[in-house]
């Protein structure tokens, strides 16, 4: 009798792109050919070691042997040698990029060892399309606990005591938001999951949805019970087709098992979920625009107040939570507020999930306790690629800012990053080496904001356009000193005068680069060159100064 083995082939977007599906088929074929009854073959979410560029990756349980960069022909070797004869195939193990040594087991990877996996607890360890796998890992246990032993108010108490803050970027206390919604009068209330992860360069929500969709479903059901909501919507961006498919399947399976529907688990509580797909508009990540979009309108923000907790979907009290926020809920209920508070910092408890990308050796997800320094996170990602130096780390995407190399000791938490003119954002972390020109980065984000501005309010509609014009002029070495002041003025007007977060925050990348990298701007203006050659701009006359100076 052979020990049962489970083979997990990562089936997230990057690994699928690198051929995970044919690797899976090759495993299937060989396992069936040899009739190996002790082996079960599963797909999984991201194994989470930030090795997306080296995929497809495969983990063999129970010993957690870790293969990476497999081709279909390698699969049959692993099946014959490792699974049939118990001889792990050394030359196919993952190789550490720094030492060049092969790493046999998953837990031996430094990247994995130093992480604290809470939001990503199941990613890569279960088949995301199997509700049984989720249940085996104590899934839906928190829901049972809540429904059988706790009142809605007690449920909110736990979340409030845990200090959980919204992981969508703003960091609003989740428990308090739930309480507002619970106290708001109304016979119909809604729970909405914001899975419109539009920040270019962030993919943390995608990974949770693709790797552990039931955690989000369970979080939403608990939220619904706490607030007295009977309906919920998951709003997913259409650019994530795999995530859409997995969350739809999770909802269907949960309904079949009685976790959704009428009188859930015998309690006097009805709740059901629907998926609404976005249609390609970044602004719909803003909560009021998102509600408009769920209602099939143009996704244009509406003024707040009234806040959605008073008047949201259909004019009814609505709570909108980010994917990761909701995925923390079951584990907080399970392990207690105290435990959650023991992770992270006083003001920002728990962990933070970042999507590491850019000039870094291992791109992918990292989950670390809040308060971990930026330099430690870069270390976890294997350091900067090549023999380069870090110039800046950009967090928070188009609403965030770039932290200069000499401030990499900054701990990641909501307040510390804000002090430096950046934000946590929804988890994008872009590492930039000295080849990056910060004018180019600022222009990139501003151009993104310009194309995504919905045009409803003037400060954002006009401001983004003017900022791009000025930044393009500077990038093309036609800028003047006065442009810097002009940009600061426009940015302030946009911050104060814009209707929603997009307009209010999209000047952050410009302001942060102006503060920390003014020399990049000055080189373009005074020396007439882009110091790194990254700015590739051909001026066509539309960027000349319009206003008299």
């Amino acid at each position, binding site marked *: 009798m052979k020990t049962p083995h489970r083979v997990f082939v990562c089936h997230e*977007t*990057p690994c*699928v*792109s*690198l051929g995970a599906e044919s690797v899976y088929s090759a495993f299937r074929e060989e396992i069936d050919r040899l009739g190996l009854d002790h082996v079960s073959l599963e797909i999984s979410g991201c194994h989470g070691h*930030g*090795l*997306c*560029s080296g995929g497809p990756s495969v983990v063999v349980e129970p010993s957690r042997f870790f293969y990476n960069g497999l081709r279909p022909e390698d699969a049959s070797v692993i099946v014959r040698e490792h699974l049939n004869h118990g001889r792990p195939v050394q030359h196919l193990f993952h190789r550490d990029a720094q030492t060049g040594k092969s790493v046999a087991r998953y837990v031996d990877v430094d990247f994995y060892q130093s992480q604290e996996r809470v939001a990503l607890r199941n990613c890569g360890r279960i088949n995301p399309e199997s509700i049984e796998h989720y249940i085996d890992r104590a899934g839906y246990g928190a829901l049972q606990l809540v429904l059988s032993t706790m009142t809605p108010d007690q449920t909110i108490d736990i979340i409030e005591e845990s200090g959980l803050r919204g992981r969508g970027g703003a960091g609003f206390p989740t428990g308090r938001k739930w309480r507002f919604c619970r106290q708001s009068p109304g016979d119909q209330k809604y729970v909405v999951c914001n899975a419109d*992860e*539009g*920040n*270019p*360069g*962030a*993919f943390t929500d*995608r*990974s949770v949805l693709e790797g552990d969709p039931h955690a989000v479903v369970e979080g939403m059901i608990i939220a619904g019970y706490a607030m007295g909501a009977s309906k919920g919507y998951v709003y997913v961006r*259409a*650019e*994530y*087709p795999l995530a859409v498919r997995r969350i739809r399947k999770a909802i269907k399976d949960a309904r079949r098992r009685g976790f959704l529907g009428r009188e859930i688990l015998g309690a006097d509580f009805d709740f059901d979920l629907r998926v*609404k*797909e*976005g*249609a*390609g*508009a*970044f602004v719909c990540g803003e909560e009021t625009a998102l509600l408009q*979009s*769920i*209602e*099939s*309108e*143009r*996704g*244009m923000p509406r003024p707040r107040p009234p806040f959605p907790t008073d008047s949201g979907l*259909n004019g009814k009290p609505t709570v909108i939570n980010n994917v990761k926020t909701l995925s923390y809920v079951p584990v907080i209920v399970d392990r207690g507020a105290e435990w959650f508070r023991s992770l992270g910092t006083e003001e920002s408890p728990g962990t933070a999930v970042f*999507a590491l*990308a*850019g*000039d870094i050796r*291992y*791109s*992918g997800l990292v989950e670390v306790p809040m308060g971990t320094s930026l330099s430690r996170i870069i270390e976890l990602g294997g350091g900067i690629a090549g023999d380069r130096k870090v110039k800046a780390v*950009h967090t928070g*995407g188009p609403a965030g800012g770039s932290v200069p190399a000499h401030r990499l000791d900054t701990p990641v938490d909501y307040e510390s990053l804000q002090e430096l003119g950046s934000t946590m954002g929804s988890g*994008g972390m*872009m590492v*930039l080496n000295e080849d*990056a020109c910060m004018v180019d*980065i600022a222009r*990139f*984000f501003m151009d*993104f904001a310009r194309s*995504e501005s*919905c045009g409803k309010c003037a400060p954002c509609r006009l401001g983004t356009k003017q900022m791009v014009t000025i930044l393009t002029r500077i990038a093309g070495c036609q800028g003047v000193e006065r442009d810097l002041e002009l940009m600061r003025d426009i940015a302030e007007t946009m911050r104060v005068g814009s209707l929603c977060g997009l307009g209010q925050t999209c000047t952050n990348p410009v302001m942060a680069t102006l503060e920390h990298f003014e020399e990049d701007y000055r080189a373009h203006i005074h020396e007439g060159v882009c110091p790194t050659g990254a700015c*590739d701009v051909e001026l066509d006359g539309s960027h000349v100064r319009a206003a008299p100076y």
Partner: protein
Amino acid sequence: MKGETGTSTEVFRTVVQDILDDHAGESWPLIAVLQEIQHRIGYIPPEVVPLVADRLGIFPGEIQGVITFYSQLRDRPQGRTVIRACRGTACHVSGGTTVLKALQGELGISEGESTADRQYSLETVACVGACGLAPNVIVDDDVFGTMTPAKVRKLIEKDGEPS
């Protein structure tokens, strides 16, 4: 040609009626209906807009407003193969602009356009979240990572099956 359009309008109407039937009773179905029309027909033919408006009890202008607001929705047909260059941050810093230029050069069209033979359409996409493989090009639903101008040439020669 004109006669053909007339026939296809009939087909479109039947398809759209079916889709509307499927979504009967659903809250706020418009975007889902439009997405499904686009999925089945390839785009949202302007001639079906009044039909949808009528069934959902809204003005055709409101539907047009929704179609023009969202970048995914389109009211004209695309090429048989849709190539999208990712313009996310990771792709930008790792040479995405050069890749987009190579695509434009190779296909002879700009983003938002289709080739004369309707074989290819070229678009950009905000981010597909496969940043570890940047820069990315997406051919229909398949992501091709770590692209270079040379790989772009191969990709188009082999029509979506690079080595």
